[in-house]
């Protein structure tokens, strides 16, 4: 327990509320005292019990007198009213470790996003149709045309790059309906890879536009306000990087996050063994790759020759002086 990673706001609220103390009010105890009297009364003195008992006796008498063939009356089970008490024993013992996000959680969020996107796309489609109708029946002022061309540009971008629009569905709709001037044209970004090793620095590039501020969340608790930040990922995991673009004009906000999570792999261990052998009178050396977690290999034998083999490598050399192994991932 108490292992959630809280953001600044949450921590602030928590530390403030933890300090709150109430001033003791003795009349509250008097009330509780009375309640306790009621709770602690033996159950057979409860009016409900008496009523139920009377009903049971009368019922039995009635049943017996009506159906003589009935050998046994139906037994009535009467239980006093109980308080529901939550099980707390288990929770006390359980220690919860804060983990970034499980795959299941990610998928769940992703699903929510996908549904939202579908809804947004449906809305856009409806809007587009309406717009076509409109364009036939109305003469459109040149100002409005500009707004629309910007909107259609935005749609193309979000479909092409596959980023999940988070909250522009509503604003796009509003733009069509009210024809306000769009202050943010796009919240879109590129990153140079979607897979890397821990300790790698990833470059992010936001689509440039005027009069906006950028805020990046790297999903590891770090933020950047640069347009094109580089961020060092120090822990393995999958990260949902988001970019928030805020208009300097009207403070409206647009958000994008990478649809495909950025996977940061754990650093592989690099190691190998070598053996000296002889075959047909020719001595050779076998190199055995012991690296784990790698996805590509690059051997440099120190004599100008290289290899990308993963497993065993045979060198027909009499002497191996130096060896380096690098691993990309």
């Amino acid at each position, binding site marked *: *327990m*108490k*292992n*959630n990673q*809280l*953001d*600044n*706001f*949450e921590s*602030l*609220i*928590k530390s*403030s*509320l*933890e*300090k*709150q*103390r*109430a*001033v*003791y*009010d003795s009349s*509250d*105890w008097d009330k*509780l*005292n009375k*309640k*306790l009297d009621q*709770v*602690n009364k033996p159950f057979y003195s409860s009016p409900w019990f008496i009523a139920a008992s009377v009903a049971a006796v009368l019922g039995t008498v009635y049943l017996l007198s009506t159906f003589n063939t009935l050998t046994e009356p139906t037994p009535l089970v009467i239980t006093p009213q109980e*308080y*529901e*008490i*939550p099980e*707390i*024993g288990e*929770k*006390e013992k359980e220690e*919860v470790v804060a983990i970034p996000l499980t795959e299941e*959680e990610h998928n*769940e*969020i992703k*699903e*929510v*996003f996908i549904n*939202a*996107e579908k*809804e*947004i796309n449906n809305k856009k489609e409806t809007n587009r149709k309406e717009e076509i109708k409109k364009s036939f029946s109305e003469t459109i002022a040149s100002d409005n045309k500009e707004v629309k061309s910007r909107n259609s540009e935005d749609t193309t971008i979000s479909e092409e790059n596959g980023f999940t629009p*988070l*909250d522009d569905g*509503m604003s796009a709709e509003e733009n069509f309906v009210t024809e306000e001037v769009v202050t943010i044209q796009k919240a879109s970004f590129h990153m140079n890879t979607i897979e890397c090793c821990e300790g790698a620095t990833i470059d992010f590039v936001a689509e440039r536009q005027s009069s906006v501020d950028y*805020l990046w*969340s790297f999903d590891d608790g770090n*933020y950047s306000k640069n347009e094109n930040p580089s961020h060092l990922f120090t822990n393995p995991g999958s990260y949902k990087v988001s970019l*928030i673009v*805020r208009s300097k004009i009207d*403070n409206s*906000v647009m*958000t994008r996050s990478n649809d495909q999570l950025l996977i940061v792999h754990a650093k592989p261990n690099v190691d190998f063994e070598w053996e000296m052998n002889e075959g047909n009178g020719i001595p050779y050396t076998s190199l055995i790759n012991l690296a784990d977690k790698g996805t590509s290999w690059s051997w440099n034998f120190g004599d100008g020759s290289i290899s990308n083999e993963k497993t065993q490598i045979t060198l027909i050399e009499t002497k191996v002086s130096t060896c380096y192994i690098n691993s990309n991932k």
Partner: protein
Amino acid sequence: MKLEQSELEKIVDGCKAKNRFYQQKIYELLYDKMLPVCYRYSRSTDEAKDMLQDGFIKVFEKIEQYNTGGSFEGWVRRIIVNTAIDAYRKNKKEVFIDDESRIKDDSDWQDIENEAEYAELSINDIVEAMQSLSPAYQAVFNLYVMEGYTHQEIADELEINIGTSKSNLAKAKANMKTMLTDKLNRL
């Protein structure tokens, strides 16, 4: 609760024997910390006090199960929180909102820019803001932030799914921020 271990044991033993004098002692000792816990899960002082009473009735009934090793205050707090969750479940008429796409969340900006300003707010302002949250938001926010429940645990306790817990936390925070910003502007 500043109390010698031996004193506490004596009081707990007294409570186990259902001695009303020791029950009152416990109540007096923990009142100042436990009533604020109830404030956070309720919308008025009266509601909070009722919750506290129900919680203490459970404490006295379950006290047999408390073993002296663990933190007594923590144990009581857990029971009080469970009482709050039960109360929430019983009154649950409200539907948790599941639609994440509608959050126009510029909260990250405020995290960075307004953190210092929030610090000037009084505890009462924060409690007031908390009490004006809907019960669903209160429950999720408190369990996550104050009690350290994971989203999975919240989902289990409140019988909702994880995504709902997350989006409700986000919205609870957004609402809190709006309310607190308003309060700040009026200072």
